[in-house]
């Protein structure tokens, strides 16, 4: 395979990195007064990358001719679908962020660029077909994310979030690297295809340790229990648009990466990692649900909610079938929409002086003071709880369907029963908005861009979203089939 073909396959990443470098120069010389322009230019770059990826996803691209650079980088439909979600979530972040930072007087030129580089890192992550590519993508994403978390330099909580994220993230990277080195040492290769061949005959102790450490490191990145501790603090401390970004795009990337490592590299040893994934899945569901109950800050609640949702996504991975991975991707897509919608709704809550409100108590009586926001948030909450006919139900449905088809009925039954615990705090938000007397703290006027985004998200997860199922299910299945899945 010659270089030009390889370059063609990484065209979206090339667009992102080149525009990132050019815009970086503008930011360096132009300063913060160019912030808005750079933000718009970044959106355009993400849009261009989106357009470049879309054809491969719709065509269900797969096979050896989608591998670039001698099998280090895979531009298949699975990676493509994950990239579409990542670019969309990053774009949504850039739409809502400028107004938020401008109100605080902290709109910096580098914000959009950091989002762009994070998106680039994630893009490399989901395409990684080699442990080295994996690590480069992961670190590019993580380093951008650490800075993003602490971008409000004057705000103690933001700085604290950044530091916590950095320290714990570095630890997780260490664990991951340790696992990777063990894997390399015992298999003699860093490529996923090579690892699959080397492990086909069974795992020796070294490989098993490598697998466990790699899984642990990645579990940190997707904030699956028991590696979730950082999530509530970072999500609460980071500026809200950044939290929205963290809860959506990196989740997609890390989960897609985890799926690829589990299924492509260790695909012949499903039984070895399935129990780990099942354990993390069930624990995440329970920890996410129980942890959320006592929260009074809505961002913290959403952090636990994301832990909870990761549990359901992992249940799809545990099935280790095309249907399971497809269900996982459908769930992820719906989850991204729900998360973006919920955080946009949070961004719309401001008091008379324009300060952001984050307390759940501030939502009281929202249905009379801000009916539009309240009804959208109602739909989002019931959707997160997985109540039909909202679209969130469909995500759970396909995941559990795949699990039952893979004969993991007990896992499905336990998982879905635990989802009822989670329903409690979602309906608590509805209760606060609809049943309580108005707190009358939400005063600020709504930005039209935020409102439009919120309404679009609410419409997508409303029963109207079901019209997308044929299309979404189709591309998710093609994406899942493009992974080299184990023959069960």
């Amino acid at each position: 395979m010659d270089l030009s073909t390889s370059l063609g396959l990484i065209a979206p990443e090339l667009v992102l990195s080149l525009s990132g470098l050019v815009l970086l120069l503008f930011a360096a010389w132009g300063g913060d007064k160019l912030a808005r322009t750079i933000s718009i230019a970044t959106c355009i770059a993400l849009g261009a990358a989106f357009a470049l990826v879309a054809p491969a996803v719709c065509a269900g691209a797969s096979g050896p001719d989608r591998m670039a650079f001698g099998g280090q980088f895979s531009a298949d439909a699975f990676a493509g679908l994950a990239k579409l979600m990542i670019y969309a979530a990053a774009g949504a972040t850039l739409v809502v962020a400028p107004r938020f930072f401008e109100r605080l007087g902290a709109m910096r030129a580098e914000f959009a660029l950091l989002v762009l580089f994070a998106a680039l890192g994630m893009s490399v992550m989901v395409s990684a077909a080699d442990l080295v590519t994996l690590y480069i993508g992961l670190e590019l994403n993580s380093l951008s994310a650490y800075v993003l978390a602490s971008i409000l330099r004057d705000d103690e909580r933001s700085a604290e979030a950044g530091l916590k994220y950095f320290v714990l993230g570095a630890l997780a990277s260490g664990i991951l690297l340790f696992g990777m080195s063990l894997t390399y040492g015992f298999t003699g290769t860093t490529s996923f295809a090579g690892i699959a061949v080397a492990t086909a005959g069974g795992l020796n102790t070294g490989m098993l340790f490598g697998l466990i450490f790699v899984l642990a490191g990645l579990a940190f990145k997707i904030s699956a229990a028991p590696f979730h501790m950082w999530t509530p603090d970072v999500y609460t401390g980071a500026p809200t648009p950044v939290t929205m970004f963290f809860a959506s795009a990196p989740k997609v990337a890390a989960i897609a990466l985890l799926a690829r490592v589990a299924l492509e590299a260790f695909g012949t040893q499903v039984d070895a990692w399935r129990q780990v994934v099942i354990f993390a899945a069930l624990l995440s569901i329970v920890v996410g649900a129980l942890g959320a109950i006592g929260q009074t800050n809505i961002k913290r609640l959403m952090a636990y909610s994301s832990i909870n949702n990761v549990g359901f996504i992992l249940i799809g991975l545990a099935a280790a079938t095309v249907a399971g991975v497809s269900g996982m991707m459908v769930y992820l897509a719906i989850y991204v929409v729900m998360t973006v919608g919920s955080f946009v709704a949070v961004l719309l809550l401001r008091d008379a002086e324009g300060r952001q409100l984050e307390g759940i108590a501030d939502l009281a009586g929202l249905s009379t003071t801000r009916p539009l926001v309240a009804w959208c948030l109602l739909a989002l909450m019931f959707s997160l709880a997985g109540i039909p006919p909202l679209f969130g139900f469909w995500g759970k449905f396909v995941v559990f369907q795949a699990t039952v088809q893979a004969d993991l009925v007990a896992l499905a039954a336990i998982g879905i029963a635990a989802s009822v615990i989670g329903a409690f705090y979602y309906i608590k938000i509805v209760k606060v908005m609809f049943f309580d007397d108005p707190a009358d703290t939400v005063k600020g006027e709504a930005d039209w861009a935020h409102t439009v985004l919120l309404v679009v998200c609410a419409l997508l997860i409303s029963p109207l979203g079901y019209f997308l199922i044929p299309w979404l299910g189709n591309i998710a299945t093609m994406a899942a089939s493009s992974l080299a899945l184990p023959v069960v």
Partner: protein
Amino acid sequence: MAGFPILTVMLLVPLVGAIACLFVKAPAARLIALAATLIDLALGVVLWANYDIGGDQWQFVESANLFAGFRYALGIDGIALMLIMLSVFLMPICIGASWQAIQKRVGEYMAAFLLMEVLMIGTFAAQDIFLFYIFFEAGLIPMYLIIGIWGGDNRIYAAYKFFLYTLIGSVLMLIAMLWMVNEAGTSAIPDLMRYDFDPGAQTLLFLAFFASFAVKVPMWPVHTWLPDAHVQAPTAGSVILAGVLLKLGGYGFIRFSLPMFPEASAQFAWLMWGLAMAAVVITSLIALVQHDMKKLIAYSSVAHMAIVIVGLFAFNVQGLEGGMIIMLSHGLVSGALFLCVGVIYDRLHTREIARYGGLAINMPKYAVLFLLFTMASIGLPGTSGFVGEFLSLAGIYQASSWAAFVATTGIILGAAYMLYLYRRIAFGQQVNADAAAMPDLSARELLLLAPIAAVVLWMGVYPESFLAPMRADIELLDQRLDRAAPASDADLVIGEAAPAAAVEPAEGAH
């Protein structure tokens, strides 16, 4: 009627009405809601009139393949027809009952009720098991809002309890459904009703469905959400809850548990009878000591629904017919009783029985109608309650004389608590001046109660109208259950009828 998608139209009318109600002011919302429910009632009458008794098992069938093996499939048999009729009949009455009682957020209230109607009709008409689940489960959202926003003082506790109890029951059912569809290779309810699942698997499947339906019915001991929800819901909310939502559980048993898992149903018959017997005695006794009218009627609902369960699990035609008739009758009667409570609650704003008394003097029309519904609840011959309870108990006697014996005490206890309630409210001295000053039924209230009274008497005097559409379906179900029906302990032997003349007159011995 061929080709006209009447069931879809029946779903669309209230749905459009619900959306419209969200955007208009209170008076317009009331009118839209009333119009939408009346149109649905008219469509329901057309549906019944065009239902071909003795024709195909499934009529008015509509089917469209959607995606991923998911079908939009509607169709009804006689059982579903009767329950849809019950829903569309009660809905305009609910709207009428809320005409003045609801003053805040009228548009949203009416929208929630119309949405409930869509979901109830959809649940009864769905022919795809997942479509059924979506309709069945989605009902939680509007009901949660109805109880939580427009309910009484303790509404939030009741709303949580209602939501979480019902949710945990039904999610396990979803897993069971996924397994069944995977196993049988079809999600069509008519096909699944003919599919023979492995008896071992049936046990678990039955339990999963039981978890859902037992909460909805509700069966003792998972009935505790019902009194709370009823007491806190607004009058119309109680009517729809008792009238139709509880029937979803019974419908689930007759549509899913019995035909799909006949062996497991027989295996668990004693569990069902046992819980039902416990419910009849315990909740009747609890009803006897209530001071709150709504709570009393709520507990009586649990007792009546237990007799439904006893009838359905009698594994014979009488029992099944009886169970269905009690469901219809209880839907009407308990709905009417909640309306009767609502009438006096609107005047005095208390549900405490002791605050009333002697209402027969100042509210004679009210007293007459209330008496009729009290008697129907007890099961007096000539009212709908008698037909259902008699058939049910006759059915269960053939299966188990003990279950019949215990369940029958429910009739006696029912008479006790209902007559005691009636005596305290309508008879005796007018001890409370404010209660004595209450005006009699208004024209609107009369208009709400009179149609129910008429149907209660109709069903009591000529139940054939209601039994005829269901007969063939119940016959089919009975045939399917035949192979598994548990052995009877009553050992009924149909002996030679002794001619009256053959009995020796013994007078001469005196």
